[in-house]
């Protein structure tokens, strides 16, 4: 562990250390202030106005008008529900699958490196590539998925053009891409479980299930929770996959909150309303991130 304070050596080095720290840290912080904090503050200001990016003209102050309109909007409630279904469905599925794969891999002695590498491929692909390619595979007419189902005698499924199936497709594709993420972190946790614990347990003739429940799970759980929270935050802000795979459709059945913000901002040009909408989303993200960081911090201190 690197200690924070360098040894005091006379009086000048200490002073220059502070100068060095400022000189090294402030450029990075300045860039973040300019590109992250300032824009958010601007959005905060716009959220109290009726500004429109196309109409131009001066922005009129409307107080909390945008916020009350959004919180009362049935449309927004529907998007919130869609987002919730998606987050719970996708992250839930990924967790179960990812952990299971990690558990199976951790029990193998040979071929572990190869298996891990194979499973990790989807995660590294761009959402654009993933979205486009699944769109092709899920095509109702010439998609390979329906083709395979057809040879099993299952009729063509309109994956992306039916209200119910479209959200399921979205969840399936996201699960395909991000199961490796959970798997990777779960595997890291599983391989960190000290071997002697298992040895002690097998001397005691503990059952496999007992060992899993009392040794594996408690030790892997903290790390797994980190992965789940991380995925939940990412899933909550999902935009690109929706944009490519379904474009929110059919109807509005796959519109997530992020996608709706985009429509209000860039298709409706209600910049003020969209900013308020965005700020509300940011608040949710801040709460989730705080949760995540607190937990991470606790884990590190243990």
């Amino acid at each position, binding site marked *: *562990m690197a200690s924070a304070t360098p040894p005091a050596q006379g009086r000048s080095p200490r002073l220059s250390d502070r100068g060095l720290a400022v000189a090294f840290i402030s450029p*990075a912080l300045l860039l973040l202030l300019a590109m992250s904090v300032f824009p958010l503050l601007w*959005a905060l200001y716009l959220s109290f106005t009726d500004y429109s990016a196309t109409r131009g003209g001066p922005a009129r102050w409307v107080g909390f008008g945008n916020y009350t309109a959004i919180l009362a909007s049935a449309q927004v409630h529907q998007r919130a529900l869609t987002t919730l279904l998606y987050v719970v469905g996708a992250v839930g599925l990924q967790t179960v699958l990812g952990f299971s794969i990690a558990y199976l891999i951790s029990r193998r002695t040979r071929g572990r490196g190869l298996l891990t590498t194979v499973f*990790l491929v989807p995660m590294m692909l761009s959402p654009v590539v993933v979205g486009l390619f699944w769109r092709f595979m899920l095509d109702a007419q010439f998609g390979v998925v329906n083709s395979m189902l057809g040879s099993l005698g299952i009729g063509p499924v309109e994956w992306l053009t039916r209200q119910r199936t479209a959200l399921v497709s979205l969840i399936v594709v996201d699960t395909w891409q991000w199961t490796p993420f959970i798997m990777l972190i779960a595997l890291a946790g599983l391989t960190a479980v000290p071997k002697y614990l298992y040895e002690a347990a097998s001397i005691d003739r503990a059952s496999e299930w007992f060992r899993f429940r009392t040794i594996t799970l408690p030790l892997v759980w903290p790390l797994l929770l980190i992965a789940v929270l991380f995925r939940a935050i990412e899933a909550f802000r999902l935009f690109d996959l929706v944009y490519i795979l379904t474009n929110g459709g059919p109807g509005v059945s796959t519109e997530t909150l992020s996608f709706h913000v985009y429509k209000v901002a860039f298709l409706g040009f209600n910049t003020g309303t969209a900013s308020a909408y965005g700020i509300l989303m940011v608040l949710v993200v801040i709460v989730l991130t705080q949760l995540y960081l607190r937990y991470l911090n606790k884990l590190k201190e243990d």
Partner: protein
Amino acid sequence: MGVSVNEAVSTDPVRDHPPPARRRGGRGRSALEVALLTVLAIVMLFPVLWMIETSIKENRDVYAIPAKFFNFQFTMDHFKDVFVGAGGGRSALSVSFLNSVVVAGVSTVLATVLGVPAAWAYSRFAVKAKKDQLFFILSTRFMPPVVVVIPIFLMYRQVGLIDTELGLILIYAAFNLPFTIWMMKGFVDEVPAEYEDAAMLDGYTRLQAFRRFTLPLLVPGIAATAVFALIFSWNEFVFAIFLTSSDDVRTAPPAIAGLIGGTTVDWGLVAASSVVFALPVLVFAYLVRKHLVAGVTLGAVRR
């Protein structure tokens, strides 16, 4: 092949130990597990293989019903179309690939140049409210891009950065910076501060000590961090689609996504450009596989 993942997180010096003791007589079960893993691996890999196959298929085989798995007509035309335009010159796609190289490359350099010194300073010095600062830095990375892009769009319009490569470079550098700082701080923490202290006793200033003794030890870490930043910028889509529009500036992700805009979609071309686009990412990811856990959690989770 070294099992990279093991080393990334374990708090325990024992690594690469055999899996949780398997019971004897569990042969049948073990075979079942292998079969299950194989099936899962095929499911995970199939879309990628299908993409590669589609990219080398004649068009009529691409749209064949039912889908042709093996006896298809081989062609390299789709790959030619990725690089060569209809008139014979360079295609719009190949220009976008070049733009992607420039934008991802320069933004990564910028994030590294700003991030590495900051990470070193956070690791070595008693900075006021250090933990809060670090957490603040990481939390900027979690902001929904669609929300951030609204004010950035207005800001860029004001200063003339809309539809420029510089605009994309700046936003990508800012979005990779939190990651670079967190990831690098982990690497700096691993280099004992005593090296610098000893060098300073020999009469070097702290800055010299950093440059001559710590920095060389950080090179592998810097390389790994930069590769991840490169992948993140390369794959980025949301900022690219909202902040750029012209063919000369556009990066590859919006350009590839633009291929499905028309009434008919040339899926062979989509597949070929996706393969060209994804290949470098997979190669790079393989190079940094040791650091994947830290990389994909933005430097937050490590040993």
